[in-house]
């Protein structure tokens, strides 16, 4: 029982890291079983093991699971466990939020797999191309449930990236400059930035698609939006996503290779610079996924250049890794083998990527197995193999035991051989289309496919050794000691496994990079180390420090995630009421349960006494002046900017593509828009007054201003609702024409934000009446103000876009 409580209610970053790692390994196995079944189906021509219907579901869920529920979570399992240890803090900035991220992730994965049991999983390919994904072409509930799962997953990722960003910027051990961070934390930091800017675009795409499917709006089923709108919105996210799943593995490789070569990473600052450069370029290359859609000669040339140019930073990384080996004393243990194997695969995957970067070659290679081979060399060959290297590397730290080196080496050899036999033949299948369930015996694809399937079985079978090794060694492996690899990053200074609170004493870094624990340099018990170091949890240092964060259970994150899970399940598993026009009937009992449970857990969450210890003396460049919570909110608002940016961009896209758009002033009454603008801007003013009153200690002022904000928000929604209903019943908006689609979705999303702000106001008002916020504890009001002003600013953009032009 105690143990169940530990895992269900934990907020400790190490426990959560372990949960992420184990969950993603299970899902790795599940998605792998799908893959091996597909490979079996493809081993010979005209095979009939799988029907086209089932194959399409397998191919879609395999891709979605591997990308969103295996690669990233496995990497962030390591990040959860290792990053706080590497930067010298006792937990992430928001431990309960971290727990919530995990449970949202778990339930989203459950939901994705559950879709198989509701009769139909998503069957669109992981790229979910429109208009195939529109309701009239894909009428099963498959992708509705899939959309629910993806939304939960994006929520998890957003919470998690905010958490890591605040932690890494604000909670580093004193003196730990960013430049002293090794490659892995750097790679995670860069990944987080990509996640923050890429995933809101994906969320917007999925939300738009879901609303199209459920309520019959036409963003993706119309000619003006349709295929190219989806392509743009999806691939703006999709290309950074490729690096999101790759970078953590590169970071791990660039930590492992120097450790086992016994030399520092060659050109580490250039490697980090290259990661940053590649991340930035990754946002301007999405057009290469649309080379053959007819986006025009100039665009294709531009994207050819940017895409080929993105290979340059990766050249620097690979060459630096190889140069690290020069004059080294390379210990070829399993982590090093996997890291170097990943580098080898990455070279092949990278070089073949340059082929696909050429628009001219893409006119031939698009949609073929050459593409499949290329991205599996990156995602499996570099990412998975690199992450497995990390698994062996940190296994002793996480479990305190050593894995079996012999089995690990056999695992390595079989994995590498199996991998090449599996994917190399696909480069030669450059005429075979992707995502076909079978092919004719008249083609000459049979032998290559059979070879690939053989490789698939070798590779898949090899992974059984990994599972066996991990399972058995975690029970009976010999104790590893704190630093079996003689590595030099901070996590290895702690016992294996580290105690719940990690550090008895928070280390400090002096300007030359020396780490100090407690009173000063020098090891406990007088043993001699050449440099000034003490062990953080040694017997004679850490005098009288208190153990923090060894408890820290909270039941609310898992409950909140569960509430969201059943809410979205209720929203998405309803059967179509009638096929045309599509209108899904949600399953109300589940929705109601979800809302009730959500409110209860929100209440419990906010009432729970859960103090997060913030150390006063931390390294927090460049955000020294900003408190953790505020930085978190700013980061969240940054993600919201992208989200609304995509909504507004989609509106522009369909509007400029539609010659018959009604002129300004004919659809919407400017007076309505003006009234709403006035009301909302005034509410910003009252929000400022609430904060000012709180600062002045004026309780009734706080109550009056908050009340005013609430009333003005309600007035805004009242006018908006009136407009919605009158427009909804008008001729113009029949069948959700594009003007109606863009209006309802954009202002509706904004309205939801206003409503959420009003809910916060009610909560603040209740507290203000009890006399809170006037004794210098007004930061909550300040944070609410940031959000509320943001929502108002969005309206300042929407008003002219819809009413004036």
């Amino acid at each position, binding site marked *: 029982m105690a143990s169940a409580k530990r895992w269900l209610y934990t907020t400790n970053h190490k426990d959560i890291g372990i949960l992420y790692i184990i969950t993603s390994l299970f899902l790795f196995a599940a998605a792998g079983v799908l893959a091996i079944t597909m490979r079996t189906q493809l081993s010979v021509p005209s095979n009939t093991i799988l029907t*086209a219907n089932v194959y*399409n579901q397998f191919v879609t869920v395999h891709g979605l699971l591997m990308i969103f529920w295996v690669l990233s979570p496995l990497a962030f399992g390591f990040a959860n466990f290792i990053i706080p240890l590497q930067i010298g803090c006792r937990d992430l900035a928001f431990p309960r939020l971290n727990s919530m991220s995990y449970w949202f992730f778990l339930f989203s994965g459950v939901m994705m797999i559950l879709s198989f049991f509701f009769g139909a999983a998503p069957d669109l*390919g992981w790229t979910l*191309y*429109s*208009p*195939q994904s529109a309701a009239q*072409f894909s009428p099963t509930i498959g992708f509705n449930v899939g959309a629910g799962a993806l939304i939960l997953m994006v929520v998890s990722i957003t919470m998690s990236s905010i958490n890591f960003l605040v932690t890494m910027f604000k909670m580093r051990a004193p003196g730990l400059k960013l430049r002293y961070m090794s490659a892995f934390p750097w790679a995670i930091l860069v990944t987080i930035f990509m996640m923050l800017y890429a995933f809101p675009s994906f969320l917007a795409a999925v939300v738009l698609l879901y609303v199209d499917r459920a309520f019959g709006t036409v963003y993706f089923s119309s*000619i003006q939006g*349709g*295929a*190219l709108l989806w392509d743009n919105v999806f691939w703006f996210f999709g290309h950074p996503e490729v690096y999101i799943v790759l970078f953590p593995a590169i970071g791990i490789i660039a930590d492992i290779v*120097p450790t086992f*070569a016994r*030399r*520092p990473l060659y*050109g*580490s*600052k*250039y490697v980090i610079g290259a990661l940053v450069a590649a991340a930035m370029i990754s946002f301007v290359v999405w057009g290469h996924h649309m080379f*053959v*859609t*007819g986006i025009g*000669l100039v665009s*294709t040339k531009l994207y*050819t*250049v940017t895409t*080929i140019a993105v290979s340059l930073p990766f*050249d*620097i990384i*690979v060459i*630096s890794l190889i140069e690290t*080996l020069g004059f080294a*004393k*390379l210990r070829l243990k399993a982590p090093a083998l996997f890291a*170097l194997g990943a580098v080898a695969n990455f*070279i*092949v995957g990278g*070089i*073949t990527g*340059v*082929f696909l970067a*050429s*628009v*001219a*070659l893409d006119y031939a290679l*698009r949609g073929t197995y050459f593409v499949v081979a290329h991205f599996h060399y990156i995602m499996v060959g570099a990412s998975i193999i690199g992450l497995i290297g990390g698994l062996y590397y940190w296994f002793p730290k996480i479990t305190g035991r050593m894995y079996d080196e012999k089995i690990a080496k056999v695992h390595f050899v079989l994995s590498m051989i199996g991998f090449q036999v599996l994917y190399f033949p696909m480069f030669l299948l450059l005429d075979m289309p992707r*995502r*076909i*369930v*079978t092919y004719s015996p008249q*083609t000459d694809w049979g032998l290559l496919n059979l070879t690939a399937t053989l490789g698939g079985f070798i590779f898949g079978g090899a992974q059984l050794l990994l599972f066996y090794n991990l399972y058995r060694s975690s029970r009976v492996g010999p104790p590893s000691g704190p630093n079996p690899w*003689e*590595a*030099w990053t901070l996590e290895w200074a702690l016992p294996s496994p580290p105690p719940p609170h990690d550090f008895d004493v928070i280390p400090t*870094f002096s300007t*030359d990079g020396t780490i100090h624990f407690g009173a000063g340099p020098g090891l406990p018990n007088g043993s001699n*180390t*050449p*440099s000034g170091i003490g062990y953080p949890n040694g017997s004679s240092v850490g005098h009288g420090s208190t153990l923090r964060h060894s408890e820290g259970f909270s039941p609310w994150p898992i409950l909140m995630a569960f509430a969201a899970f059943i809410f979205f399940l209720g929203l998405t598993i309803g059967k179509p009421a009638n096929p045309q026009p599509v209108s899904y009937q949600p399953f109300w009992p589940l929705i109601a349960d979800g809302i009730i449970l959500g409110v209860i857990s929100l209440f419990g969450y906010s009432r729970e006494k859960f103090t997060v210890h913030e150390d006063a003396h931390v390294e927090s460049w460049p955000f020294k002046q900003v408190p953790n919570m505020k930085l978190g909110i700013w980061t969240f608002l940054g993600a919201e900017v992208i989200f609304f940016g995509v909504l507004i961009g989609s509106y522009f896209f369909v509007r400029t593509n539609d010659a018959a758009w009604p002129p300004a002033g004919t659809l919407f009454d400017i007076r309505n828009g003006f009234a709403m603008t006035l009301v909302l801007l005034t509410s910003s003013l009252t929000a400022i007054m609430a904060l000012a009153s709180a600062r002045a200690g004026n309780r009734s002022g706080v109550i009056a201003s908050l009340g005013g904000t609430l009333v003005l928000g309600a007035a805004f929604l009242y006018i908006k609702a009136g407009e919605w209903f009158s427009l909804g019943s008008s001729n113009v908006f029949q069948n959700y024409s594009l003007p109606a689609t863009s209006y309802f979705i954009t202002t509706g999303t904004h309205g939801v934000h206003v409503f959420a702000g009003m809910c916060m106001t009610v909560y603040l008002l209740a507290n203000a009446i009890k006399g809170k916020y006037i004794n210098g504890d007004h930061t909550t009001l300040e944070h609410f103000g940031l959000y509320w002003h943001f929502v108002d600013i969005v309206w300042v953009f929407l008003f002219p876009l819809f009413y004036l032009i």
Partner: protein
Amino acid sequence: MAVSSTQVQFDSLFGLFTYLAVAVGIVVFSLLIYFIVKYREKPSSQQPDDTPILGKMPISRGHARSVVLTLSLSTLIIVPLIVGSFGAIDNILTPPQHVCQGCAIEVTAHQFYFQFTYDNGTKPYQTRDILRVPVGENIRLNVTSADVFHDFGIIGYNIKTDAIPGRTNTIWFYPQTTGNFTIQCFEFCGVGHYTMKGTLMVMSQAAYFSWYNSTVVH
């Protein structure tokens, strides 16, 4: 013997990429393997003098020289690739303005077949899944879709283009040998995607034009 102009063009560009890729691959892999073999831990191995120890973060090492060299060499390699690609794409995206009568054909993708429309002067003539063209003439195809996102590709010709509802994409080629080739859809388009195939029949000019003239309704 090449089957079409697009295949010739693809083969030469793909060849350029492959030569350079193999050359780069050999150099990089040789370096990697040489370093691993030479510097792996042996009884005779020298202890590196800069092995970092736990308790002191390593000082950044390495020369900007190496980065500059890497970038310069890489740039030397990618410039011909970009130039070659630009030449080829100019050609692909500049279809001939004038093709002979019966050599400009509309292609409409449906779930799950291709429909070909010949403008024969009086009434459009439509065929399904069989695209007849004459050898030794420039052929221009206007490709669109009637329902979802498809992709029209000719296996062996190394040319394809997306078929998107509401948009028309044009491709062209010059068939050099007669014979039958497989047309297939290269974008996932639903449950029948794998069955969405057609045949490109490259006929002798005499045979083609005699067929083409027979479709004219008088």
